[in-house]
């Protein structure tokens, strides 16, 4: 019967696709990102014994983790262990999952907890203290946990980017003071992310809270009330802000100012369509408008291979890993001796002062601050 035949053909197709899936599964039983092809080079180069040959280190991370393939292979060459990266959602979701998985961790090491989530992570008691080899070289101001349950790996700055062409077209020069943004000439020119749903959005809010303070004659609330009156535009996430609203991003945006990262102008050069002599965007490093985000990593309690986890922690603070961070994740390495891409020094200006809040204060007030911000800016 015709129908039966066609349905049969259809089911066959589906089953074939299913089998394909099954094959894909068995071909790569653990989704190991560093393929075994590196093995000859590995044994040749290290010479020393590989204490963890045949093992796999599982790194739990947020989905923005990126590192060069060659760097992962260097770890395999040193230790013999493969690395499997598990993306567990955005920074908040990844941490919450590890808290829920307490006792039966999703992996050996977790990377990507920033200073806004640090307190939650430490309170949940899911990390084991360990001081990696190069930790003593890391500046003290970046180490926020005295017990080293979480150690700093990288940091970056959240600040306002401006689009040079759009400013020139509007006949404006970059503002000199954060409060200038509440003046009429900057009406409707700034895009910020919602701190309730976006980590740069929260970082920027925290910087303004630190700068303007909670009491006095002009508090952070006053500043945001004035920003709202001046038509500040709020988006859910960075992608939407940068690519949809910012004039220097994608297609339809018109706003010359956006809350982004200090390395974004360098990235705009690196990822430009045609080689550029100058960055199309620049950093506004205004006092009170820069927040330093530090990202931490730690060994998850309950790992079955603590020595391997320690070896990975050492590796994350090694020169090899640290010098790769800049070009892959567009953040700065915490190790002073590590290098960053040339574009960073050329186009990514670095603030001399930043606004930093104590993680415990962030944890205690986060909810209330976001609520207050929502009342002021959105409702």
């Amino acid at each position, binding site marked *: 019967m015709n129908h039966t035949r066609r349905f049969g053909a259809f089911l066959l197709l589906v089953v074939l*696709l299913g089998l394909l899936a099954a094959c*894909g599964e068995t071909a790569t039983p653990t989704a190991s990102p560093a393929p075994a092809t590196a093995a000859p080079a590995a044994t040749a180069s290290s010479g020393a014994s590989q204490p963890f040959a045949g093992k796999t280190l599982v790194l739990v991370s947020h*989905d923005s983790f990126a*590192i060069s393939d060659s760097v992962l292979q260097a770890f395999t060459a040193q230790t013999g262990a493969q690395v499997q990266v598990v993306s567990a959602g955005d920074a908040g979701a990844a941490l*919450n999952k590890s808290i829920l*998985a307490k006792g039966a961790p999703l992996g050996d090491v977790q990377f990507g907890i920033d200073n806004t989530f640090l307190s939650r992570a430490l309170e949940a008691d899911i990390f084991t203290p360990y001081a990696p080899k190069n930790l003593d070289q890391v500046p003290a101001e970046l180490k926020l946990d005295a017990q080293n349950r979480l150690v700093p790996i990288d940091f970056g700055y959240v600040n306002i980017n401006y689009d040079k062409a759009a400013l020139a077209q509007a006949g404006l020069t970059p503002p000199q003071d954060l409060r200038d943004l509440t003046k009429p000439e900057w009406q409707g020119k700034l895009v910020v992310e*919602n701190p309730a749903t976006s980590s740069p959005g929260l970082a920027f809010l925290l910087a303004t809270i630190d700068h303007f303070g909670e009491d006095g004659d002009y508090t952070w609330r006053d500043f945001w009330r004035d920003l709202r009156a001046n038509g500040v535009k*709020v988006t859910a996430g960075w992608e939407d802000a940068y690519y949809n609203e910012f004039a220097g991003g994608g297609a339809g945006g018109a706003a010359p100012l956006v809350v982004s990262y200090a390395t974004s102008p360098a990235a705009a050069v690196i990822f430009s369509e045609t080689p550029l002599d100058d960055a199309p965007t620049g950093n506004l490093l205004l006092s009170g408008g820069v927040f330093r985000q530090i990202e931490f990593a730690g060994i998850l309690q309950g790992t079955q291979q603590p020595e391997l986890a320690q070896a990975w922690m050492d590796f994350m603070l090694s020169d090899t890993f640290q010098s790769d961070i800049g070009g892959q994740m567009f953040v700065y390495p915490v190790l002073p001796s590590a290098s960053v891409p040339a574009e960073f020094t050329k186009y990514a200006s670095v603030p001399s002062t930043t606004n930093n809040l104590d993680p415990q204060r962030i944890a205690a007030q986060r909810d209330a601050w976001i609520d207050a911000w929502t009342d002021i800016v959105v409702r």
Partner: protein
Amino acid sequence: MKRWRTSWYALPLLFGSLFFVVPLAAIIQRALWPDGQLMLDQALAVLRTRATWSVVWFSAWQAALSTLLTVLAALPAAYIFARYRVPGKTWLRALAAVPFVLPTVVVALAFGALFNQRGLLNRWLMDWLSLSSPPLRLENSLTLILLAHVFYNYTVVLRIVGGYWSSADLRLEEAARVLGASRWRVWREITLPLAAPALLAAALLVFTFTFAAFGTVLILGGPGYRTVEVEIYEQAVNLFNLPTAAVLSLLQMATTLTLTVVYTRLQRRAAVPQTTRPQPERRVHSWPLRLAVLGVCASLVLLIVVPLAALVIGALGGPDGWTLRYFELLRVNQRGVFAFVPPERAMLNSLRFAGLTTLLALLCGVPAAYLLARPRSWLTRLLDPLFMLPLGTSAVTLGFGYIIAFHAYELPLGLRVPDLRRSAWLLPVAHTLLALPFVIRTMLPALRRLDPQLRAAAAVLGAPPLRVWREIDLPLLLPALIVSAMFAFTVSLGDFGAALILAVTGPDNATMPVVIYQFLGRPGAVNYGQALAMSTLLMLVTLVSFAVIERLRGPGAEF
């Protein structure tokens, strides 16, 4: 025969219990009964807050409005495509399904490129009317949310109702016409009422889907609009307030359940056994009809094809005119990153997960639909709404449940359940959960319409059960089966949420939407271009898959 059927019924029940009930119970237990103590106070506090109810109210009315608009927009096309020969309608129908697979951020980019201040529409209007400032201010508005919901769900109404109409028996309508009824009266009194079960099913799906809307409201609506799902995400992820998140999730599920119960009532009343026969397409013969066809096609192009085209234009447009550069760049691992996913790998991953999902969803969904189509009993009354639940369940909540429930277990006798949490198999499993409601809602109206006398006659004439199924059920259900398969396939192809909430992925399992997000996570024109190029490939994969599936259905059996 009885036993043969019953063992099939076990499949959806087992699947649903294991992958839905267990993880959900686990997370709710953790949230509301920590340390064996019920946190009733906190739960009641959430329910007593006015903000909670205003969020529920907004979710409900925007969903109702979205459903109404989607039905109004898609019903004419469903009717005309089902009954008339329209050149290119296979492609139009396939195009209408493409939005369903696009990640929300990409849709936001498409809408942005069209409607934003410097968007195509505003620039065009400014040129045309010689205005000095952009006339349209659509960003962050309810209009955009509703537009996006119609854009996404158009295909649901088009497929389900259209499929039902295309195999309806025309003789009733013809008889009415012969007896002197006007065409409008026939449509109002015969065509539309007979399609009520399919229409209700489609409306229920659209409502449930939009009630639990997350990305569209968050990104397109802006911070001023909040649905229950947005609130749950904030509570669960940003504030890690699990009790509140759990109560809100339960509230969301309760709404879905209530609605499904109401629907089930209406549905039972509306279902009439009818003879079905694939209809030959009629020719568009009169001017009013021609105008109607033109109108339908034009609205489809405006609502769906234009935003899609904005993406393709973005993917092909470089600084110096048209270019394929972004497509070429997709194949180059520019920065030597370990997680690099070549486009063909992403496509293959997407396709195999979608294929697996389709298989699983049909294996579970078809027996479930048979079970629910049985004569009314306490069991079907209980199960019918339950099978709708996955669509109205918070993805974050369920994802957290997976983390708690699926770690390794030591069983007696040295048996061991392995840690499933990082298994790539969870991806098609989660997709199947989302696809099941679509499969069941598509199959049920078709199953209920089957005249039981046909089967009885075949059985009396001595056909064994399998043969009855093959020669009576299968041919008559084929259109619905294929629509179901298409839904399962698309749900999986476009899903990003499950990929995000589970702990799998890694480059070996990265699907196309995951790769799109990777590009959009970074600044730079090249990343933007590559994201649009990958989105274009995703659209192409969808279109080609649909063309293949439609071909299998063959000519003559249009739906």
